[in-house]
């Protein structure tokens, strides 16, 4: 068997981004950072998808991460993006830990619908909460890193570079997790839950763990997006945001931990190009792409690579 070079490759790509960063225009850095943020959410969704679970409400944790990051700045006057990301992940994981007791009992369409309802509850709460800016949301403090505030010209680059580093670390941890017995349960759960239970493992606990990890990843992604965009609003929890994440995950496939980032980057490119060409039909392009993917590449873009290897 070939040695798995996933992590070195991902590290190399991130290194290229970090090194090439100063040469990239501001908008490209912005796209890269947002792709990393969304890739982190998609990575979490991928973990769930491996077990056959599709969450139609992952925007819940994305939004929690973003609002935690924003609140840390608004109420404690902390603009450090590392603190924001850690706080975002922690709060998202905590909420997921509590909700997980409920959600781990559900499968298939009902798992999707319940997670959708939960994300819409957050949306409904945020829209009406004056302290958090209701429908308008509020601005996030300018990003700082370890107490240093980068100059206006460099801030995008610094955010992108730190984002790269955090994403690489998170991905490495997920990669390790997938090689533990707990991580390898997911496909087995998808295939046949009852047999997994007969072998003496708790499916519910495995799903609960997966759900918390996915939420923490989404929380980091949300915090990163918040500090990148500099503004947050309740639409981050709306079901169409969850739809975007699912799109990215399906686009990427479950073949590798790198896939979600690739998916997010391609999503960003489709989004930008389609929106640029004709702002009123970019959703149509997305929908068509999704439809074609499901029909012709049901295992996502990543299956292109693995298929070629097999042949």
């Amino acid at each position, binding site marked *: 068997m070939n040695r798995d070079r996933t992590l070195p490759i991902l590290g190399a790509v991130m290194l290229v981004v970090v090194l090439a960063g100063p040469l990239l225009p501001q908008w490209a850095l912005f796209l890269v950072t947002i792709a990393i943020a969304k890739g982190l959410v998609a990575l979490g969704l991928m973990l769930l998808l491996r077990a056959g679970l599709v969450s139609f409400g992952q925007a819940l944790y994305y939004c929690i991460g973003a609002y935690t990051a924003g609140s840390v700045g608004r109420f404690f006057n902390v603009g450090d993006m590392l603190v924001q990301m850690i706080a975002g992940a922690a709060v998202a994981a905590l909420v997921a830990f509590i909700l997980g007791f409920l959600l781990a009992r*559900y499968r298939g369409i009902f798992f999707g619908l319940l997670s959708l309802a939960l994300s819409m509850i957050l949306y409904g709460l945020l829209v009406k909460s004056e302290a958090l800016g209701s429908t308008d949301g509020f601005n996030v403090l300018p990003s700082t890193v370890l107490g240093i505030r980068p100059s206006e010209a460099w801030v995008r680059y610094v955010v992108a570079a730190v984002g790269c580093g955090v994403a690489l670390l998170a991905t490495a941890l997920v990669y390790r997790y997938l090689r533990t017995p707990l991580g390898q349960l997911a496909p087995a759960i998808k295939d046949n839950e009852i047999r997994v239970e007969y072998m003496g493992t708790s499916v519910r606990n495995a799903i609960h763990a997966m759900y918390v990890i996915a939420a923490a990843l989404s929380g980091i992604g949300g915090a990163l997006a918040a500090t990148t965009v500099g503004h947050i609003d309740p639409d981050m929890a709306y079901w169409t945001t969850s739809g975007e994440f699912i799109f990215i995950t399906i686009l990427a496939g479950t073949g590798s931990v790198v896939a979600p980032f690739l998916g997010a980057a391609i999503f960003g490119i489709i989004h930008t190009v389609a929106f640029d060409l004709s702002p009123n039909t970019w959703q149509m392009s997305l*929908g068509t792409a999704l439809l074609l993917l499901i029909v012709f590449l049901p295992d996502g873009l990543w299956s292109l690579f693995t298929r070629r290897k097999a042949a």
Partner: protein
Amino acid sequence: MDQIPAVIVDGIFYAAWLFVAAVGMTLIYGVMKIVNLTHGSFYALGAYAAASLTGAWLAKGYPPMLSYGVLLGSAVLVSVIVAPLIERGILRFMYAKDEVVIMLITYALFLILEDTIKLIWGVDPYFIAEPYGLLGSFDVGDLSYPTYNLILVGIALAAGIGLTLLLRGTRIGKLLLTVIHDPEVSRAMGINVDRFYLVTFTFGSMLAAIGGAFTAPTVSVVPGLGVEIIVLSFAVVVIGGLGSLPGAALGAVIVGLVRSATIHYAPEVELFVIYFVMALVLAFRPRGLFSLAEPRKI
């Protein structure tokens, strides 16, 4: 406590609207096992078709009293054109796929339809307020309500009772129940399952379009109209139990009353409360209030 009559009347109107908008979704899920996100698109299509056709009707100076027929006609027209196109053209090739995958496919179709609507009707709002004011108003206690609201109550009752009678009392209804129970065996027995799917999808979508068409006079018809209705319909049909007719009715009444009560007593939590009820019901009865126990499959 003097608000109680208002809460109940508002709740009934809202429930009627919800039922018309959502019952198609439960029908389609019940028969075809598809969680249909294009439902919101049909709602929007109905609203747009009604807005432009009724607008044209009134502009020509035809009798305004007949504009209600035009509202209904435009919803029927648009769904009879678009729904078979989607079902025959795309969905029927997907039935073998997993429930969740089909839901994603309808999500893709929803995105496509959403922009198709923008391409056809543009992004400017449409207004057709005339049918709304035409019927005058009636009083409940010292509150005055537009009589127009009663039309939706009528449609909701007609749809609910009509569907129940159809399922329980006719040959077609019994055949449909067979198809729901086991499509494969039904097919082996010579029932044209494909046709049932086509008709169910068209009819279910038509109900959404009718909901949209009769809402059009009360709102401004703008892009994104269908987005909210999808999750609202979800909430309604999931509370009652996906695929159950009485469930959808109960879900609509629960959500209608709860929402009108919150609007009157605690307007800040209005949006939140609907999904809270949905989550609460799912937490205790995962398959909704009107669901039957299902065996776990090994």
